């Protein structure tokens, strides 16, 4: 029932948006950049939903249930209150100023065709990894919609089909319309579910020290209460028999979002989200798509507070629900016994919804989860398809391709990217580490891009910085597989490749750009005087 409601909802809004956008989509430029005419509201909603997918929902509740607790909501502060304003106020208008169509094209103008192609290849790989995470999250939402009765693999396949439909027909403009509707559905659905969860808890609190939400607090704070409820036994069963870590951190303090003394919070949530978004995100095609499509710089900037507000509050219901799910024996029992559960930490929220919420609210909540993941997944498909079709195929091999042929090519590329995502999603369960690893490949590109915008474009410096950072990143990734050991200090967070990649990128990037030959940066007055054809007005 809930699945039917959700599918009808998406079919209806997609059909409406296709009809709406088809009138305006006559060429590939309309498809990929909405004709460069998107107003500030469409830009804001489109951009807000790009970094707001599984990162704010599925992967975040997995992080919350594996030791970080409610402090996982800091992820959204990093993405929504730091990265988002930086992007909307500075980096988005920067790409708009270039009047080009893709990020690899900008990199090519700055550093030559070779580096543009390298960026096209690596950014596609990076966002394929992140797209796989989105596909898993989409499958999880559909799993919840089926009441946990459909095999997760089928759910993932339905998810990718929806994602394709999301982007395939009307392009960026269609996605922008859908994103406006979905942003509203996302917030309304998830907060309504949270309200109903409160009612459920109040109704089932008899006999405990506190009613409603306070009951959950009591369970977390009191080991005796946990034992009395039988939680300890289920938790041990899940950990020892199924190898799942769920519930092992059911301790007081997990319900606070201010566990600032927890180093894992800093090294695994706050720093990664800020560093990786503001580096890999800035040079990625899918994050920049709304800005390429914006009417002007004013349209890029105007919605900054609205966007921030939407982004930062959207993650809270999911994190709270996962923490509540971990404290309820019936939900954990379902995780232990349901044969369709592939990973209990991922499925805890749908299982809680099925246990605690009325069917229509489960439907609404899962539609809102779908809204988040589909929009991000759709943007990634669009971004990757665009880079492959334009930067890897059209510009190097067939620069004179007709507009009609390019549209066909673009759609084929989008479908191929979708197939790659679904293959990955069927073979993976853990989302969060994949984010961190994939994002790391954008760090050196951002460093040379940033320096090349405001200071100096040095091609040899850019090549050395990027290649060195990639080599170090790969060395950091495969010590076990290839049989060597990392330095003794590379333990804990420093074993993540993002930190070492950041250090290598910044040090090499700055030093080499300073000492090696180059030309003035793209936004400098000197460059504008040397290349009047690329000049733009500063706004």
């Amino acid at each position: 029932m809930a699945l039917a409601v959700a599918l009808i909802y998406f079919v209806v809004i997609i059909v409406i948006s296709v009809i709406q956008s088809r009138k305006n989509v006559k060429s590939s430029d309309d498809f990929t950049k909405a004709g460069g005419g998107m107003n500030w509201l469409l830009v804001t909603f489109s951009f807000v939903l790009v970094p707001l997918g599984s990162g704010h929902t599925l992967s975040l509740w997995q992080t919350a249930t594996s030791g970080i607790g409610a402090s996982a909501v800091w992820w959204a502060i990093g993405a929504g209150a730091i990265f988002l304003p930086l992007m909307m106020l500075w980096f988005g208008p920067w790409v708009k100023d270039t009047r080009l169509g893709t990020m690899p094209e900008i990199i090519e103008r700055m550093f030559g065709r070779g580096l543009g192609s390298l960026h096209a290849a690596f950014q596609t790989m990076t966002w394929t990894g992140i797209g796989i995470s989105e596909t898993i999250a989409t499958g999880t939402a559909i799993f919840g919609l089926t009441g946990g009765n459909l095999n997760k693999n089928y759910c993932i396949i339905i998810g990718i089909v929806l994602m394709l439909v999301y982007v395939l027909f009307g392009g960026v403009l269609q996605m922008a319309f859908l994103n406006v509707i979905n942003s509203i559905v996302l917030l309304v659905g998830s907060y309504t579910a949270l309200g109903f969860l409160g009612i459920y808890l109040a109704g089932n609190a008899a006999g405990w020290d506190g009613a409603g939400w306070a009951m959950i607090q009591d369970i977390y704070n009191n080991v005796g209460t946990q034992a009395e409820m039988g939680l300890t036994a289920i938790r041990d069963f899940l950990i020892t028999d199924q190898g799942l870590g769920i519930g092992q951190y059911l301790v007081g303090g997990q319900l606070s979002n201010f566990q600032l003394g927890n180093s894992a919070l800093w090294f695994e949530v706050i720093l990664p989200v800020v560093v990786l978004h503001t580096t890999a995100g800035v040079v990625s095609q899918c994050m920049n798509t709304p800005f390429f499509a914006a009417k002007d710089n004013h349209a890029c900037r105007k919605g900054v507070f609205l966007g921030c507000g939407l982004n930062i509050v959207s993650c809270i219901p999911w994190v709270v629900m996962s923490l509540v799910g971990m404290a309820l024996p019936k939900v954990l029992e379902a995780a232990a016994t349901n044969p369709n559960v592939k990973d209990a930490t991922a499925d805890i929220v749908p299982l809680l919804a099925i246990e605690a919420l009325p069917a229509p609210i489960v439907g609404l909540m899962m539609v809102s989860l779908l809204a988040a993941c589909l929009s991000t997944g759709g943007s990634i498909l669009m971004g990757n398809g665009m880079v492959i079709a334009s930067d890897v195929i059209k510009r190097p091999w067939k620069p004179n391709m007709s507009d009609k042929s390019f549209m066909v090519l673009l759609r084929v590329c989008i479908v191929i990217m979708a197939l790659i995502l679904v293959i990955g999603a069927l073979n993976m369960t853990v989302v969060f580490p994949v984010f961190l690893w994939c994002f790391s490949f954008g760090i050196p590109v951002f460093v040379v891009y940033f320096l090349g915008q405001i200071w100096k474009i040095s091609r040899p410096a850019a090549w050395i910085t990027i290649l060195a950072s990639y080599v170090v990143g790969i060395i950091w990734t495969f010590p076990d597989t290839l049989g060597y050991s990392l330095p003794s200090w590379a333990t804990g967070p420093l074993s993540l490749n993002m930190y070492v990649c950041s250090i290598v990128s910044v040090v090499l990037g700055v030093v080499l750009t300073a000492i090696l030959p180059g030309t003035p940066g793209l936004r400098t007055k000197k460059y504008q005087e040397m290349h009047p054809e690329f000049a733009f007005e500063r706004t």
Partner: protein
Amino acid sequence: MWVAYIIISQIVIGMVCCGVIFLIWKLTSGRGIKFF
């Protein structure tokens, strides 16, 4: 109530961060831009 506390503190922290970044942009954007 812990849920309300998380929601309110999140909004306050987020808006302060965004506001500070906006202020920096406003002060450094030279001629500036008419915003609203």
